């Protein structure tokens, strides 16, 4: 136990050192660093969505709206209140907290509305947020906000990603995580074994919203502008795709999903629209062969890898034996 903690700390420090090195010595092209930052930010985004859509098993489309609230609030905070770079964490926190508040509002309908009906409500929520932002001149109306101070850099992204992974991991392994999964399996049974469903859903939605909000804040401070159109249908679809591609109910899955999709979308710009065609086909193929996503309800672990190898070896051995029998 202690040994592992030390190992994790060393790993963290090495990562941090690597980020500093990359930033200061120009080891990697700036465009590549940008992609790495995108991947990191979307990992946080997908982790957040996965809490509700994966672990809690609710088909929610509220993430675009929640991301918008987080992004806008943090940006406004950086522009008007926390104006120096070292106050960036405060802006992030403000954005995250604002998202938690709207996340709680979204949790309320989930108490008695289910399934696709809830999907429509959450969709409506996202589109309402977008529309309100378009109409509020205070936040720039359809033009959005600019210039937002460019505070996001590789180190901040790295820190936030590590924090998000650690927190989400702790969260899903705690009683809250167990409650979420119990509700996903059978809501009535979980109520009857003393799970407070309303409370569990509220907590899940707010923690989810916190991370989605943080990711929104990071992206705004990376691009140094934001506008309502970034939070429309395509943001909703993007989030869904990454969650269900990588794997529902899995932290590894969230990371893989964000990684694959962002690399596809960001680094294959040269092939233009064809990346979306390829992306669409990849989605179909993955769903056919892994309906729960690449890492659906599983985590990458050393024991898991060993098991997988053992299974492959078994199958090979059996195949060989089968062939011998056949001859």
């Amino acid at each position, binding site marked *: 136990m202690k040994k592992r903690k030390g190992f994790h700390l060393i790993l963290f420090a090495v990562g941090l050192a690597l980020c500093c090195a990359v930033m200061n010595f120009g080891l990697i092209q700036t465009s590549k660093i940008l992609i790495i930052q995108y991947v990191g930010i979307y990992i946080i985004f997908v982790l957040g969505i996965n809490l509700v859509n994966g672990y809690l098993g609710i088909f929610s489309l509220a993430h675009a709206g929640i991301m918008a609230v987080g992004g806008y609030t943090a940006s406004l905070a950086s522009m008007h209140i926390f104006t120096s770079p070292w106050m960036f964490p405060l802006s992030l926190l403000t954005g995250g907290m604002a998202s938690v508040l709207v996340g709680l509002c979204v949790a309320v309908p989930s108490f008695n509305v289910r399934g696709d009906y809830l999907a429509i409500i959450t969709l409506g929520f996202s589109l309402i947020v977008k529309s309100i932002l378009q109409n509020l001149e205070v936040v720039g109306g359809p033009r959005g906000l600019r210039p937002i101070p460019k505070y996001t850099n590789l180190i901040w992204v790295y820190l936030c990603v590590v924090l998000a992974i650690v*927190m989400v991991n702790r969260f899903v392994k705690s009683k809250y995580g167990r409650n979420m999964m119990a509700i996903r399996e*059978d809501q009535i049974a979980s109520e009857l074994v*003393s799970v407070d469903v309303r409370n569990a859903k509220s907590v899940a939605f707010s923690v989810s919203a916190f991370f989605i909000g943080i990711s929104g804040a990071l992206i705004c401070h990376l691009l140094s502008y934001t506008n309502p159109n970034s939070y429309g249908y395509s943001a909703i679809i993007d989030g869904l795709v990454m969650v269900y591609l990588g794997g529902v109910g899995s932290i590894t899955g969230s990371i893989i999903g964000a990684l694959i999709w962002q690399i596809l979308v960001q680094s294959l710009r040269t092939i233009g629209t064809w990346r979306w065609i390829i992306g669409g086909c990849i989605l179909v193929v993955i769903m056919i062969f892994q309906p729960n996503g690449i890492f659906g309800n599983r985590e990458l672990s050393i024991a898991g890898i060993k098991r997988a190898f053992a299974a492959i070896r078994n199958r090979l051995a059996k195949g060989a034996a089968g062939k011998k029998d056949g001859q």
Partner: protein
Amino acid sequence: MSAPVASFDNVSMHFGGLKAIDGLSFSVAKGKIVGIIGPNGAGKTTVFNVLSGVYTPTAGEIRFNGQLINALRPHVITGRGVARTFQNIRLFERQSVLDNLRAACCAHIKYGILDVMLSTGRMHREEREIETGCMDILSFLGLADKAGVKAGALSYGDQRRVEIARALACKPELLLLDEPAAGMNPAEMDLLNELIVRVRDHYTLTILLVEHQMRLVMGICDEILAINFGRKMAMGVPAEIRSNEQVLEAYLGKKVR
């Protein structure tokens, strides 16, 4: 005689025109095993559903340990000490047996979200406590070796026992068993008989059970409540019920004169 653990006072549960329970009154004394029998559609499971809070009764008063629990939400009632199993098994199938039990402990866990995020000693202590508690229950029911298995992968009989284990993890005073013997053969039923009595004695529980199998009901129940069309036909010790005219009629039809 001490105050009853649970009591129904003129309770009715109507769904539109259907009177699933109609003015039912009875009480359950502490430490007893009470069976509820009746023909199909007599309202047996509905008694459980209103008692555990799935439905709010249309009229009447339900008391648990003297307190009114009519309008409470299910998890509150469970938290106060009423736990149940389900007629058609409802385990969290994709989770391990141990996690099924741990999910049921949640009313007794005090740590909060900050404890989780900071991974405090308090959280680890409580988690260890409930884990030992759950493992104790599992070993008592002879399921300790199944703790890590996904609940959906267990055999039917084991799933039935995990349902009881999960209900016990809620630390109840009153345990509701909804057709625990469904689908069992006579030998398994005898084992179940013995298990139910053992559970009652070990955890000092009061047990209310709905059952079709007379072998089980007559064998272990201290008292039997017979209902039909949502109304009480009779309540008494097994011998009384066995010879009750009305009950016989409901089960076997009218006597030919």
